[in-house]
């Protein structure tokens, strides 16, 4: 047996022994996602057990170095862990913006002290992070952000407002873009700051969405004092960190278009499609697109690991993945007919289909709109002029 083969069989045996059966069932709703944090909520003891077991092995972040709470695995081994988890339909043990967004940025731009302090907490799910990027006047034009950060000698002083802060009301800490040099051109006066959401002067207000849920907040900063060592990277060079992190965010969001595991969409809808040849044709075309995109995702991840992917490729993935996810839910709604319109009923599980359909509309807006991604592809990959 090669090393990788024995790693696979060890992994399989360990997962078999440590992944509780409940954690191999599909999630029923968003409440089944485990986010960790200072005051974590678990929907079952199995959920906590699964997160703790994976964290103890470093497998919430298998490819991070062991010193920072990771599993210290190489690309091939990391892929095996993911494949073996998928094989038994194991749930993601820990949903975390710390893992998918902040962690990679800290690994690249953080000081050694910052890495040793923040990364293990992220890996163990002890701190739940939120992202302070967009502002009322800075959406697609993110670099025009105005949240003010002044150097007060022994601390930073932050004043301003963020919006679309995902789960700000539940988060423990925020990674935040702030303006540290108002006189510089807009991309050159931004810094990347970390601070505790429990700091005096921080307040949040959830935003009710068309889905009836409030995953996003308005976040206000009123004379918030932040210790000096919580700035990541170089002062006024936060835009580099921000862009790097956005690449990871786009990867994560494009992954949502995978439709996860499972097979073709038409399999689940076969009964309806038997009586509706036009819808069946639409779904068949969608399945072609979906399965082709799944191959693309696999290729993208494989290329990413060996540095073969274009640095703007996450924009292409984010664009294609989110548009696909929206198309999927349009088809699910069409196939569901009037059943799928029920908003508050037992049968519809409180409007699951309709609420999810509406939720997907944000996919192509958050993390940079589809139009922003297309612009990036046009400029950075196709090298079209003046884009």
């Amino acid at each position, binding site marked *: 047996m090669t090393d990788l083969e024995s790693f696979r069989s060890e992994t399989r045996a360990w997962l078999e022994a440590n992944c509780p059966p409940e954690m191999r069932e599909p999630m029923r709703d968003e409440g089944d996602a485990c986010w960790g944090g200072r005051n974590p909520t678990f929907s079952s003891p199995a959920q906590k057990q699964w997160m703790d077991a994976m964290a103890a092995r470093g497998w919430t972040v298998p490819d991070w170095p062991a010193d920072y709470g990771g599993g210290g695995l190489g690309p091939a081994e990391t892929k095996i862990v993911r494949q073996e988890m998928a094989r038994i339909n194991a749930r993601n043990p820990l949903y975390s913006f710390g893992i998918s967004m902040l962690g990679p940025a800290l690994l690249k731009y953080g000081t050694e002290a910052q890495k040793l302090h923040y990364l293990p907490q992220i890996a163990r799910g002890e701190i739940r992070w939120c992202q302070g990027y967009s502002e009322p006047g800075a959406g697609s034009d993110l670099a025009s952000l105005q949240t003010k950060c002044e150097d007060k000698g022994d601390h930073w002083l932050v004043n301003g407002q963020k919006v679309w802060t995902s789960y700000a009301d539940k988060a423990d800490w925020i990674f935040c873009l702030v303006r540290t040099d108002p006189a510089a051109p807009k991309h050159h006066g931004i810094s990347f700051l970390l601070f505790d959401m429990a700091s005096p002067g921080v307040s949040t207000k959830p935003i009710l969405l068309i889905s009836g849920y409030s995953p996003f907040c308005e976040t206000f900063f009123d004379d918030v004092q932040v210790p000096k060592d919580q700035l990541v990277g170089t002062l006024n060079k936060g835009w580099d960190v921000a862009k790097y992190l956005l690449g990871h965010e786009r990867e994560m969001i494009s992954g949502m278009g995978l439709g996860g595991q499972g097979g073709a969409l038409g399999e689940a809808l076969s009964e309806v499609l*038997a009586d509706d040849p036009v819808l069946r044709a639409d779904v068949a075309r969608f399945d*072609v697109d979906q399965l*082709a995109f799944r191959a693309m995702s696999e290729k993208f991840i494989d290329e990413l690991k060996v540095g073969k992917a274009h640095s703007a490729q996450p924009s292409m993935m984010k664009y294609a993945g989110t548009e696909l996810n929206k198309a999927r839910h349009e088809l699910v709604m069409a196939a569901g007919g009037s059943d799928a319109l029920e908003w508050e009923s037992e049968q519809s599980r409180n409007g699951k289909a309709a609420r999810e359909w509406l939720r997907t509309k944000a996919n192509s807006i958050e993390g940079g709109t589809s139009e922003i991604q297309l612009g990036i592809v046009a400029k950075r990959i196709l090298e079209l002029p003046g884009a």
Partner: protein
Amino acid sequence: MPLYLTDDQAMLQETARSFMAEEGAIAKQLRHWRDRNCKDGFGHGLWKQFAELGFNGILVDEADGGLGLGHVEAGIVLEEIGRNLTPSPFLVSAVAFVEALKGTAARERWYPGIIAGDTVAALALDEGAKHRPDAIEMRAERSGNGFSLSGRKQFVVQGASADVTLVAAQTDEGLTLFAVEKDALGLDVEGVRLADSSIGARLTFADVQVDADAVIGEVGGGAEILDRALNAGRTGAAAELVGVGAASMDMTVDYLKQRKQFGRLIGEFQALQFRAAHLYSELEIARAATLKAQQLLDEGSPDAEAMVSVAKAKAGRTSQLAVQEGVQMHGGIGMTDEYDIGLYMKRDRVLNELFGDPSYHADKLARMKGY
């Protein structure tokens, strides 16, 4: 297997890319033969050059004198063929026909000529205007020590130049494949120039007598062999379509960087930028799907056939988008024969139809997935 080319495959790609751009170029091959009204639509000299580079034996086992490589490698050559619209018998002879003969006695008869670039082979499957391999009606009746074939076939690519044609016909035992030689008595071959200036053929069989040893594989065992040949042909066609689409996109993006209107390069207009970026995205996805299908075929995976249909459908739709956007963004000159972009549009149309169009494969995928 990671979904990117190995170092060896990347080397083959470099070889194929520079060779095809030089020797297989549009001016040197496609336009050259078209403008001379060549009855074959391709150059036999180039087919010999393919052989010298080893291309023709890519899918042939080493024991049979080939390179013993796989569908990924065949696809590498085909993508370059697609980029240059290089007319050649490669797809039908060295991919689909070679794959059909794998493991059969007929390979000893036909492989050496194909590997040497002396023999051209074709596939006679379609009987109507659309690809319907599950509804083949042509009959082969037992006669003497062999069979008598009667019926019609159409869209036989390279059929007018073929030394041997694989013919699918029904026997009492079920679908059976025959290797029919070009001078067979009672076989009428009508070469037909297609929109892309390649030559297809309509074949009419009037009581054509073939010996028992013309049967490829077993009598009644044709369906399985045909599936194998079609998987190879469809995946190969997908790779060629990716090449057609990629070259169309490159040519169009270049044009957007040169053409000025309203005092600006037209590539500065967001309306065109977004369409170009969308096309790039679709092409990347089509290429990934095609590589995945090739790898699954090479691994002998049971999932291969579904992915082949995904690849053929996705590559077909994407190439269609690329040539349509290409002609439109080129404006008036895109409509002229002098510019190459229109040639890509014609080739795309033929390749999309070959071995099943995107609708056929979306439907096939749906059936395989149980709906």
